[in-house]
Structure formats: C-alpha cells, structure tokens
C-alpha cells in the first residue's frame, strides 16, 4: 500500500479543508514536504486548491524550490489545463501531474497528455459525492457537479490509459471520521485495473487498517488531516502496516 501525504496549497500556505470547503492555514509547504519526505512518505501530492477558481498556476515556483531536496515521486495538480501546463509542471520538478476539471470537460485532453508525456505521468483526479444513491464527479474543488457518474468516468479513464486515479470522497474529506467505506467497497467490486489512490477521511491508524483488505498491490492511500494536524506521524503509520 503506497502511503502518500497530500499537501493542499493556497498561495504560500498549506491549507486544510473540510468536505473541500474552507482554506484554513495549517503550515508551511516546504516544512511539511521535507518532514514527510524524511519520515518515509512513498510519494507526495501537491494540490493548488484555487488554481481552477482563479484561472492561474502559482504552484510551480514553489515546487521548483523544494523539489530540489525531495527524491521521491512528486505529483502536482490544480489548474492543469493544457499540454504546456504539464510541461511546465514537469520542468518545475513534478514527476506526475494530476488532472481533474480539464479532463472532465474534454477527455481527449487526457488522451493527448498520456500520449505526449507517457501514461505513467498522468494521474486522473476525481472528486466524488453521493447524491441520492448515485456517485457524481465534481470539479473546481468540489464546487461544480459535472453530472458525470463515477463508475462511467473511471471506466473511461481505465481505457484512456492514465497511470492511476486519485479518488477523493468529498463527503469524508477533512472529517477525520474514517475513509468512505461504501465508496471503496463499490470501487473494489468493479475490479478496475487502473491503480487507485483513496483519499478523504483518515483520522487514525485504525481507519487505514479498516480498508486494508480493499487495497490491492499498486493501490495507495492519500493522507492530509491526520498528518497536518499531527494526529499521527508517518513513521508510526508505516510501522503498523
């Protein structure tokens, strides 16, 4: 199981939301990135949480600075809209880029990106919410409902050939009440071959143990609140697993 800290960034700060709402400042990106690297993170994800909202990409300069001292895979997301954005991200130190809004609006973009940069470079980020028994894909940091159903979208991604899916449960995100078991079970039942990183809701080690049986070789989990709020540290988490 890959253990992947996710660092959400707004301007110069690490922020932490609840249900993808709110931009409470919780730390300094460089400090947290270095800490998680030295504590044994398998990879790190950096998300610019307002890039889509403001139509800008400020995160690349930040990434350039601290990627010099971090030698594990770095995924960068938030406002990646064009092939040029991807190139800039990779040049700034990203190994993978995460794409949400742009992919939902135009799935050809994902195909072109995979072709141009290699499928192992492209991560499809999905924010999902359950509305009346149906899971829907959201974008712009949980603001807009694309009306596209989750399972349809993952099937498409599976065919397009991205490296993996970063799946965030909006309902559980930031709550520290545990992962979205219902969602994870549903995905597991469907036997998608694309690796999945499950994100949203982890508050303690038991939460991770509870979903272990659904995590296949190649899958991973993304952790934010549990680490940023110091509820647990990575060394302990890796030891227990």
């Amino acid at each position, binding site marked *: 199981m890959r253990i992947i800290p996710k660092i959400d960034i707004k301007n110069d700060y690490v922020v932490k939301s609840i249900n993808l709402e709110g931009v409470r400042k919780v730390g300094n990106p460089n400090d947290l990135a270095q800490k998680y690297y030295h504590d044994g993170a398998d990879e790190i994800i950096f998300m610019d949480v307002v890039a889509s909202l403001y139509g800008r990409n400020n995160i690349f300069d930040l990434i350039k600075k601290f990627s010099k*001292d971090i*030698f594990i895979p770095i995924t960068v997301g938030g406002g990646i809209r064009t092939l040029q954005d991807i190139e800039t991200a990779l040049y700034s*130190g990203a190994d993978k880029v995460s794409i949400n809004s742009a992919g939902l609006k135009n799935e050809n973009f994902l195909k072109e990106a995979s072709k141009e940069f290699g499928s192992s*470079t492209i991560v499809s980020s999905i924010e999902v919410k359950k509305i009346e028994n149906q899971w829907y894909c959201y974008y712009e940091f949980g603001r807009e409902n694309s009306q596209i159903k989750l399972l349809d979208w993952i099937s498409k991604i599976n065919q397009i050939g991205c490296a993996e899916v970063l799946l965030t449960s909006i309902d559980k995100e930031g709550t520290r009440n545990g992962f979205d078991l219902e969602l994870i079970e549903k995905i597991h039942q469907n036997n998608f071959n694309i*690796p999945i990183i499950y994100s949203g809701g982890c508050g303690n080690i038991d939460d991770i143990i509870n979903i272990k049986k659904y995590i296949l070789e190649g899958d991973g989990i993304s952790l934010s609140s549990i680490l940023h709020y110091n509820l647990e540290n990575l060394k302990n988490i890796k030891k227990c697993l």
Partner: protein
Amino acid sequence: MIKNVGIIDYGCGNIHSLKCALEKIGCKVTFINHNKEDVKVDALFLPGVGAFDIAMKKIKSKNLDVLVQSESKKGKLIFGICLGMQLLVSEGVENSIQSGLNLINGDTYRLKFKNNEKNINIGWKNTEFIEENFLKEFNDEKFYYVHSYAVKTKDENIHSYSKFNNQKFISSITKNNIVGFQFHPEKSGELGLNLIEFVLKAHS
C-alpha cells in the same frame, strides 16, 4: 567518482528530477539534446518515460542513438533508467515493433495482470540483487517502480529481479560499461541516491 555527467534529453523523461538527484550527490550535469562530435562528459544518463516506439523515434530524429552508441564504444558509462533501460536492448514491442539501441541483447514484453489485479507495476518493491554482484549491498531493499513493460535478456546480463503480482521480472541489467535499472533510483529516496553514487564510483 565520476562527476562530469550528461543526461540525454530527447523529450521523454523527468530530466529535471534526475538533474537534481545527480547534483545532490555532487555531479556536474549537462543536457545533451542532439548528436555532436565532442561529448565532454564521462557518463551518459538515459532517462525515459512513456512508450518505447515513440521514444526511439524521438531519439533517432535527433541522432542521439548514434551518440549513445559511439560513446558506449569509447567505454563511457551508459546508465539507463526505466524506459531508458528498456531502450538499451535490441527490440521493443509497445504499440509497434521498434528496434532499440541494441547495446544489450534482449527485448521487451508486456507485464501480465489478471482481472482483479492492477495493470501497471507502481510503488516501492523489494529488489533482489544477484549474489556476488557489485550492488549486493542493496539486496532486498525497496526501490520505486512505475512501468508496464519489462525486459528479457540473457542470464549473464541480469543484475537483479523484482516481482509484480507474483511474477518475477528483471529489474536491472548490465554489460561491461552499460547498466540499466527498471526502477527510478533518483526517486527512491536517499537509498536511490546512494545507489547512483555507488555505480558512478564503481565505474570510474
């Protein structure tokens, strides 16, 4: 230790990451993006991300295949990473059949996966280095992999193995001054940096 190194930049690889890693261990790094007469570096790194056939087409279009092959003949260290390792062999089968740099005899094949398994090898995997191998101190350590194809080659060229969904596959190869790693040493933490340093020292 070899300090003056070049990275082949053919438009398919995380060259920035690799440059940072090499600089961290004290190397001076030059990007090489076209064939030239006078290549002043002592080792060539060949990174790679993406598809074999597309990568080879790009390399050939810049005559970088000629450069790598000629530098290799001079005895310089050729260090392939991930797709870069696969390109060292004779032939690749991804998308279409395409000949590689042919520095080590061998070809590639698609990793198999069942219905309830993932379709690419991604994550930190144990790597078994062969006994009496110069990298034996790294035996059984975990390195970071991300690939869906692997290579087949003669036993004498095999350095290490790893496993994907319980299938054994070759995770590093070598022949004289040529060495290739399926995993990403530049993304495998301090351990990976140590491995690169070790190889550079061993080949100087």
